[in-house]
């Protein structure tokens, strides 16, 4: 009986995930949220179907009623987030909030399976993040004086990551965390948001090449501090944010290529001078020769991804715990192993649809400042997703960043929820812009008539 449940639910999960992803991409056919409503509702049904089948699997395998309560709490929280959001912000973008919840649902499922304690902890952080996050769209919408603190953001950000470099604890070979009152923070995640606001403000002001140069220097300081902290993944993300925002703001491809050129030179320099970078590259090129040491993580991750097959071994069917740091850096491999390659590819496509929706919002908004922030968030989000999935699958060298919303890690999930809420706030500004434009047109035509 248990076997029937676990075997059949594997396919049910993949099917609902497929439908969910499909509905997500179908939203791009319509221009207004009103027309997408049906798709969104079907998405939510699929989301809870995936959650339900996974928890049936978990309960069938473990036989522990505690998971049932945990599951009920999750349904209550996610259902209230979705309903409250729709009630408070009817002008927000529902694909982004749906996708965020879907990824969090997956996160809670796989974390429950990997470590119940970590899952509960993460669940509390997610709940708290939403409580705080719900104010953010309103703040973004109401107060446009946030535009004025450009250089404060830069100073605060650089100071925070600089302080980590100086005093931070050494974890996993990278100095990236603070511990205050027993709670560990990862400032580079939070500074990412400050950096985005700084870049957007500075680039809006930068009218000439001299100002652009100053912006570049400040960005370079951020990146260099992160490289010195050995936080390669964050350094790369900051660099990509910088490049793409300069490109979007100036619309000049030559700036993008100049930046990439300097980036390439810096990478070669770093490769020559930092031993730990050479180790990562070697482990990427051939993880199996030195499998006992440098290649261990990547090869275990690859074992995980490939052992699941298309539909996975079922929750508790594999051994994802043999992958080091599986909850943070290799969550994708754990998902692929137990829920299948098909499911994990669909999950990555959900991330892509989130990204495309964010970029679409950035495309249609007229205000340059908000456009830069929205696009910056979109690129930062998708690039980080790319780094962690690609790193664990031996597509690119491993950089050790989290999969946004899915990986275990309080700072990461909080910051990502904040960023998504910023996007929602900016969506409201765009709706407002359109409304005002319609109003203006009506007034003009009204004036002509009279």
């Amino acid at each position, binding site marked *: *009986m*248990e*076997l*029937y449940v676990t*075997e059949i639910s594997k396919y049910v999960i993949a099917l609902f995930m497929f439908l969910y992803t499909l509905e997500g991409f179908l939203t791009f056919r319509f221009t207004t949220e009103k027309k997408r409503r049906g798709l969104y509702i079907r998405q939510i049904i699929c989301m809870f179907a995936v959650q339900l089948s996974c928890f049936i699997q978990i309960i069938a395998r473990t036989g522990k009623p505690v998971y049932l309560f945990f599951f009920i709490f999750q349904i209550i929280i996610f259902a209230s987030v979705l309903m409250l959001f729709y009630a408070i912000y009817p002008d927000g973008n529902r694909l982004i909030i749906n996708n965020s919840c879907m990824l969090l649902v997956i996160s809670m499922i796989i974390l429950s399976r990997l470590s119940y304690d970590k899952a509960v902890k993460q669940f509390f952080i997610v709940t708290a993040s939403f409580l705080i996050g719900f104010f953010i769209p309103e703040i973004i919408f109401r107060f446009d004086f946030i535009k004025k603190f450009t250089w404060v953001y830069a100073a605060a950000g650089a100071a925070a990551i600089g302080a980590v470099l100086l005093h931070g604890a050494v974890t996993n070979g990278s100095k990236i965390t603070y511990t205050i009152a027993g709670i560990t923070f990862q400032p580079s995640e939070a500074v990412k948001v400050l950096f985005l606001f700084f870049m957007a403000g500075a680039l809006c002001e930068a009218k000439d090449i001299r100002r652009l140069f100053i912006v570049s220097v400040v960005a370079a300081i951020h990146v260099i501090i992160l490289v010195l902290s050995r936080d390669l993944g964050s350094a790369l993300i900051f660099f990509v944010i910088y490049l*793409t925002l300069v*490109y*979007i703001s100036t*619309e000049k491809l030559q700036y993008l290529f100049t930046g990439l050129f300097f980036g390439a030179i810096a990478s070669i320099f770093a490769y020559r001078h930092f031993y730990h970078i050479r180790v990562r590259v070697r482990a990427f090129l051939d993880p*199996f020769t030195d*499998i*006992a040491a440098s290649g*261990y993580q990547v*090869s*275990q991750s*690859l*074992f*995980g*991804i*490939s*052992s*699941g*097959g*298309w539909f996975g*071994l079922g929750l508790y*069917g*594999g*051994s994802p715990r*043999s992958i080091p740091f599986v909850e943070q850096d290799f969550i994708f491999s754990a998902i*692929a192993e137990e829920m299948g*390659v098909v499911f994990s*590819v669909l999950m*990555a*496509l959900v*991330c*892509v649809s989130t*990204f*495309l929706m964010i*970029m*679409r919002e*950035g*495309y*249609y908004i007229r205000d340059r400042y908000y*456009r830069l922030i929205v*696009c910056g968030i979109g*690129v930062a989000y*998708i*690039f980080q997703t*790319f780094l962690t*999935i*690609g790193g664990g*699958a*031996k*597509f690119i060298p491993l950089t050790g960043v989290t999969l946004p919303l899915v990986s275990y890690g309080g700072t990461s999930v909080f910051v990502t929820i904040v960023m998504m809420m910023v996007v929602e706030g900016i969506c409201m500004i765009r709706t407002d812009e359109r409304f005002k434009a319609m109003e203006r047109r009506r007034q003009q035509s009204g004036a002509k008539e009279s």
Partner: protein
Amino acid sequence: MEQKKVKRKIRSYPIVVLSVFFAGLFGVMLIYISYYSYAHRQVLMNNSYNTRQQILVKQNSRGTIYSRDGDVLAYSQVDESGAETRVYPYGREFAHVVGYSTHGRAGIEYMANYYLINTSIDLSDKVALDTKGVKYPGDNCTSTLDVALQEVAFNALSARKGAVVVSDPTTGEILAMVSKPDFEPSSISAEWDSLLQDKSPDAKLLNRATQGLYPPGSTFKIVTALAYIKDHPSDYDNYRFTCSGRFTIDDESISCFHGETHGSEDFTSSFANSCNSSFANIGTGISRKVFKTTLDQLLFGKDLPLDMLYSKSRAAIDESTSVGDVMQLSIGQGATAMTPMHLNMITCAIANKGVLMKPYLIQQIKSADGRVIKSYSPEVCRHLMTQEQAATLTGMMEAVVEQGTASRLKGLSYTCAGKTGSAEFNSSSSDSHAWFTGFAPADDPKICVTIIVENAGSGGSFAVPIAKRIFDAYFGAE
């Protein structure tokens, strides 16, 4: 009208470019992940650092290995407590080729491991077994091995060290593979430590057929002859040589086996008599470039198309090779070394009109309830020589049987073609390994045999009789 125009204007090219770029990047990455994880699943599962094997071993009982006719070569016995014992009904006979699955893996147990530990039975059967508390049966593997031929080869080699490879040149199926000394696979666990500590030259765990590197001796004259034909395509038939038992250039000399003198010879009789002097002369007459390309084409120093563990053969020539070394190379001595399996593959290609079929040991994988999971079929591997060259070499190898060193195969109910070898492995003595490689029937080859008997003497006296017993068994002659 105007509104439509405004709508069509692209508002921001960078956003479009970035969206398309990242979406494309993800597309490529996700296809890569799907492809990589599927294509490499067996290699990854077999990696000794992959602990997931243990899950399968705990869940499924290891599948059975069958011969081509359905005889059981290896199976798992499960006792009441669920503990598995691997049983090998034929014992030592199939020791190397079927291999073992404890203390690492070898042979078919290694090659088919992924399937043997996985199960493909229906869900309803699994549920039924679950309620009984029995492990699921793993998938079964049908090999290409022929019990009768293996038995003959095993007995023919008797107490000698050496190896025998028997294959079908038209398909690449390996019909028998024997290597001696051997071990008792059922008790390998108990004997493991003593097998590892054994420092004698026995090397019982080494599969000499695929991993043993031997000087090929005169069997290598097949290669030298092919290089000469390539270098002198129109006039190799005009070759003449007078053998006085010894051939000398610049103080370097080569003698014929056991000091024989062969007198006046042409190309074919030099080959049939296995005349070292003449072949040293032939070798020095080949352009080194052609010789080198021939070696490359025949996969010397290269990866072989084999799924099992094997050693790479060694044979090399370039502009800096000394004349003495070229003469040694031409008769398969000196630094030259090859595995019996590699020689068998070259012989197969000659028998199969120049085309090498990929050698294979596994025919089919079936689930315990008889569903075919995977079938292996003959596969063209590569062209080692032209059809004309293969025909010429076949003719020469027939001459070896008709008038040369393998005359014990003359006048049988089937026609044979082959080449003997007596390879000296110790420069200070005249002891030699006995070689034979050949096929039958010469005009329509069905079976290809390669034999080495270590330290036995001449190939004609010690290897050819083994070949005859195998051919007799195959063609049903007495």
